[in-house]
C-alpha cells in the first residue's frame, strides 16, 4: 500500500475534491503523469482530459477537466481546473458544444500559429470525447 498524500481539485466555482489519496493521473500538457507521494515539485499546465484519482481507501474516481494547471509539491498536489466535473455527470451536449466551438475557432484562426493551437485543442477534445463516451 503506497503512502497517501493530499490532493485538491479546485474549479473557480468550488472545491471539488480535498482528500488523502494514493495516486492521481493528470493529463499534463506534455503527456500524462501519475503523481504519488513525495513527487518532485512540478508545475504544469493541463490539457482537456480525464483525471483519475485513486483514494487512500482504494476506490477510484474519474473527473473530466477542461484545461487548467497543476501545482505539485512533495506534500501534496493541487489541480486548478478551468472547469471540472465527475465523469458520470458529464453533459454530452456541453461537450459537443465545446467541440463545435473549437471547430469554429480553428476555422476562424487568422495565422498559422493560432490555427495550430486551435486544432490541437480540438484534437484533445475529440480524444477526450472518445475516451469517456463508452464509459
Amino acid at each position, binding site marked *: 500500500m503506497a503512502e497517501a498524500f493530499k490532493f485538491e481539485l479546485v474549479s*473557480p466555482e*468550488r472545491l471539488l475534491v480535498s482528500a488523502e489519496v494514493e495516486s492521481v493521473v493528470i493529463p499534463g500538457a506534455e503527456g500524462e503523469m501519475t503523481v504519488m507521494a513525495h513527487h518532485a515539485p*512540478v*508545475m*504544469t499546465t493541463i490539457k482537456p482530459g480525464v483525471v483519475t484519482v485513486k483514494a487512500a481507501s482504494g476506490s477510484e474516481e474519474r473527473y473530466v477537466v477542461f484545461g487548467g494547471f497543476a501545482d505539485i*509539491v512533495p506534500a501534496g498536489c493541487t489541480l*486548478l481546473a478551468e472547469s471540472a466535473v465527475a465523469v458520470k455527470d458529464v453533459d454530452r451536449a456541453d461537450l459537443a458544444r465545446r467541440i463545435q466551438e473549437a471547430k469554429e475557432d480553428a476555422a476562424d484562426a487568422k495565422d498559422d500559429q493560432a490555427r495550430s493551437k486551435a486544432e490541437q485543442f480540438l484534437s484533445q477534445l475529440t480524444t477526450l470525447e472518445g475516451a469517456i463516451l463508452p464509459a
Partner: protein
Amino acid sequence: MPSLKDLRNRIASVKATQKITKAMQMVAAAKLRRAQEAAEAARPYSERMGSVLANITQAIGGGGDAPALMTGTGKDNVHLLVVCTAERGLCGGFNSQIARLARDHIRRLLADGKQVKIICVGKKGFDILRRDYASLILDRVDLREVKTLGFVNADAIAKKVIHLFNEGAFDICTLFYSQFKSVISQVPTAQQIIPAGVASAPAEAVDGGNAVYEYEPEPGEILSDLIPRNISVQVFRALLENAAGEMGAKMSAMDNATRNAGEMINKLSITYNRQRQAQITKELIEIISGAEAL
C-alpha cells in the same frame, strides 16, 4: 385636513407597501446566504492562483519573457474602466457608491489629459454613467438573465478586456466593484488588473515554497497561459463580491423601509383615531345642545 376615509385608504396602502418591503428583505436575506456561499466556494481557487502566480514570477525573476499583460505597454495614456454594478435598484446607496468612485476616477483621469474608456457590467452603473460620460462607454455587459453567476460569465468579460488589450485599445485596466465586508458595509473598490500588479507575496504562504520547481512547459509559457486566467478569476471574484454586497445592501435598505412604513402607520393611526374621536365629540355636542335648546 384629510377625511377619515382618506386616512383609512392611506393606512391600507402603507401597510401593503410594508408587506412588499418585508418580503423583499426576506428574499434578499436568502439570496445573500447563497451569494456568500458562492463567494466562499470560489475563494480556494483565487488563493491558490495567487500563490502559484507569486511562485512563477519569482522563478522568472522579472526576466524579459514576462507577457505584456503583466508588464503593461509601458504607457498610461488610455485607461479602461470596468465598472461592475448590480442589475437592479432598491438596494440603498450600493450602485451609486460604485458609480461615484468610478466618476471621481474618470474626472481625475480626464483632468490629467488621459483618455478614458468604460465597460459597464450591470444595468444600474450604465444608467448612472450614461448621463455624464455616454461617449466614453465602449460596451455594456448585461447579466440580467443570469440566474447563478458562473465562471463563464466572468470569463466572457475577461476575454473581451484581453481582446481589447491585444488590439492596443488601452494601456491600463481598472476594475470597479464593491468589496463585501459585512451585511451592513460594502466598500467600493478600484483594482488595477492590467498590467497585473503581482503582489510580491511572501513564499512562506506556499507549502514547499522554497522548493525548486520543474516547469512543464517553460515558465514563460505557463505564465502567458496563467495571466489571462488570473484576470478572469479577478473578474469572477469581483462579480461574486458584488452579488453578495448587493444582497446585503438590499437587505438593510428593505429593513429600513419596513421600519419606516411601521412608523408611518403608527402616526397615521394616531391621527385617524384623534379625528374619529373629534367627530364623535362634535356629534355629541350637537345632540346635547339641541336637547338643551328645547
